[in-house]
């Protein structure tokens, strides 16, 4: 009886959603297995963490209030007054940070494996766009608890955007909704964080996943092995093992280091010493601090910002610039460039937290 009901339900759903075809596709799909296939799992971990972000973010919407006079209090209520609210918020905040870290790892591992080469140019570009979008998620979400650190870090961040040549002033006003951080800013950041960015990001995630599924995983240049494993269930089981370990890590972090609420922002107070943005912006932030005031009679900070924009554009276009990889040949120059960039990011991030007044 039970089996026949389940069968009927399955057939009903299958007829409408073509599930058998999807399962068939997953069973037929294979993933290359070689010495460096470990790096494939970071994509799955990013997807898993994104799902956690959506789920916990949706739950936080039930109690969060995007009003200057109530935002901090609502977060305080979530952490103290809502059953498991502390867990939901801590999971949301910790996974957001781990997600961006994993995206960096995923991006650099794909770069070093030259996974961006033809025909996966759009996979690379959509992935890089996703990293930028998730950093924007982080920037907009950081302000929402309306605490002292986030308030002043947002001011520092938007001041940097405001120093861009030509469009800086206009861009800053658009981001803030006025000349300074106010209710208009909080409303905008909230709208970015829960409406605009999710729609764009989830669309891009779908594009990225469809591209990965249809084009398959890229094999590193020079990899001659022919071994492959079925995507389902073998690869998925390994993916699930990684997800489980991440869940344990998140659980430990949330219980022993619940995400702080901080002191409520006071726009009239002076900027606290040593204010820093979120860790994934610090390599750019510290670069702007150490760059000379003038380089060849041009303003150093503006030049550095333009440098970051140009660097980002070149990074996005790497699949088209690395012609040797396109031809399936090794491209050590790009490997060295990627290595230098990775070292630069790590060193600057570490220095930000270890060198006083940087």
């Amino acid at each position, binding site marked *: 009886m039970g089996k026949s009901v389940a069968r009927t339900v399955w057939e009903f759903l299958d007829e409408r959603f073509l599930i058998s075809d999807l399962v068939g596709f997953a069973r037929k799909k294979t993933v290359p297995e070689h010495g460096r296939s470990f790096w494939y799992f970071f994509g799955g971990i990013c997807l898993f963490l994104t799902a956690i972000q959506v789920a916990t973010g949706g739950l936080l919407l039930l109690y969060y209030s995007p009003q200057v006079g109530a935002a901090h209090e609502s977060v305080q209520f979530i952490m103290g007054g809502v059953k498991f609210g502390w867990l939901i918020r801590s999971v949301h905040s910790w996974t957001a940070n781990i997600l961006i870290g994993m995206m960096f790892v995923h991006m650099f591992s794909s770069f070093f494996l030259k996974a961006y080469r033809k025909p996966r140019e759009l996979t690379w570009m959509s992935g890089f766009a996703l990293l930028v979008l998730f950093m924007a998620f982080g920037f907009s979400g950081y302000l929402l608890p309306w605490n002292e650190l986030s308030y002043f870090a947002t001011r520092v961040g938007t001041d940097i955007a405001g120093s861009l040549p030509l469009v800086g002033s206009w861009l800053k006003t658009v981001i803030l909704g006025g000349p300074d951080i106010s209710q208009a800013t909080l409303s905008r950041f909230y709208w970015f964080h829960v409406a605009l960015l999710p729609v764009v990001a989830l669309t891009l995630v779908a594009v990225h996943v469809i591209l990965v599924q249809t084009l398959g995983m890229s094999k590193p240049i020079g990899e001659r092995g022919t071994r492959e494993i079925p995507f389902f269930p073998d690869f998925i089981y390994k993916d699930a093992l990684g997800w489980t370990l991440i869940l344990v890590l998140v659980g430990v972090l949330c*219980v022993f280091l619940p995400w702080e609420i901080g002191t409520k922002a006071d726009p009239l107070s002076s900027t606290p010493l040593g204010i820093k943005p979120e860790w994934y912006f610090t390599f750019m932030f510290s670069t702007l601090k150490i760059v000379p005031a003038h380089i060849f009679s041009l303003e150093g900070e503006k030049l550095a910002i333009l440098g970051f924009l140009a660097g980002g554009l070149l990074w996005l276009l790497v699949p088209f610039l690395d012609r040797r990889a396109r031809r399936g040949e090794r491209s050590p120059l790009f490997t060295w460039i990627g290595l230098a960039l990775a070292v630069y990011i790590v060193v600057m991030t570490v220095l930000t937290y270890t060198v006083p007044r940087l």
Partner: protein
Amino acid sequence: MIFRGARLLAAASLFAPLLAFGQKNGCVDCHSQLEGNLKAPVAAYAADIHREFGLSCRDCHGGNAGTDDIALAKDKSFKGAPTKAKIPLFCGGCHANAAVMRASNPSLRTDQLSQYETSRHGQLLKTGDTKVAVCTDCHGVHGILSARLPKSRTFPWNIPQTCGRCHADKGLMESYKIPTDQVDQYMAGVHARALFEKKDLTAPVCNSCHGNHGAFPPAASSVASVCRQCHASAGELFSKSPHKKAFDDMGMGECDACHGNHKILPPSTAMIGTGEGAVCVQCHDKGSRGFEVAGEIRRTLDIFTGRYGEVESLLSLAKRKGVEVSDAEYSLLDVHTTLVSAENLTHGLDAAEIGKAVTDGETALLGVRAVAVAALKEARFRREGLAVTTAILALFAVALALKVRRMARVRRGAAGPGAPGTRPS
């Protein structure tokens, strides 16, 4: 003709500032070329507050500033530098003249000279003692700054140093037979901590109790009034207490008898009672009624303080364990206010009043304690929950790892072209 004259006068008045701008200042021209003490006033006066009000050398010293000739410059109006004994009258020439002050700085008082004459400094100066402080000793000479500026000698956090320049000088104070440790004592007290550590500019400094221009050591009978300027509640309670009459009868100062004068330490319950450090035993002998009351008040406060400390520790532990307790922390602040209030009530010596405040505080403390205990329970629940969840996830991970290994083994066993699970790339 009259109109023409008026027009010329109006035009001349328009250009008058330019004429003034171009005027020569022979005093500055000459003194800036001299050395040492004769040159110093030129640089110092550049930042002087009198300069901001448009005063120049001749406004104080007289003379003719429009010439380079020294003899001509020292004309009949030339006053030169006054002797120390004459400085109060020299400054008072303007500062005690309401008409003059109204023209330049109407908000400034004009009673400094009359106050000075009533001060100990002024009285001694009248007897011919020129070692005492006059205006310039506290305000400086040519670099006088507004008391509102932090660099001014009379800005609150510079006043102990300004007074201490003379009062901490043993050689100078020897002939007056007054101690020289007041500044050191003040710096060790609670008022200096408020001023220098908390940057509270309302904290009392020397002149808050002794006066400034009319500086005088407060008499025993007036010490209480001085302290009551800020500590009105404690003063009111003391006035109603049995101590008031007893102190008056003995001719004792009030507040300073227990708290001291320059070195006023942070008040605490340790000052009350019959143990070591308690001030009550200075007067109340063992076995007296006062001795018993002191001990009783101390016990009541100690019990409350102990419970407060215990709840504070519990709450702090819960916070360290990651539980959100900020509402309870605010409630604990209220309890702390009650504790301070109960400590303040000791000035009135009414054990019933103190007991009532302590009871109110303990009732509120119970509520905070309940929150702290619940928060610790929550912390334990979280850790236990994590342990269980981690165990389940670990079991799941091990099962997955075994499954993955078994699948790999099966694949390897069936290895070979066309074997299941392997495909050509």
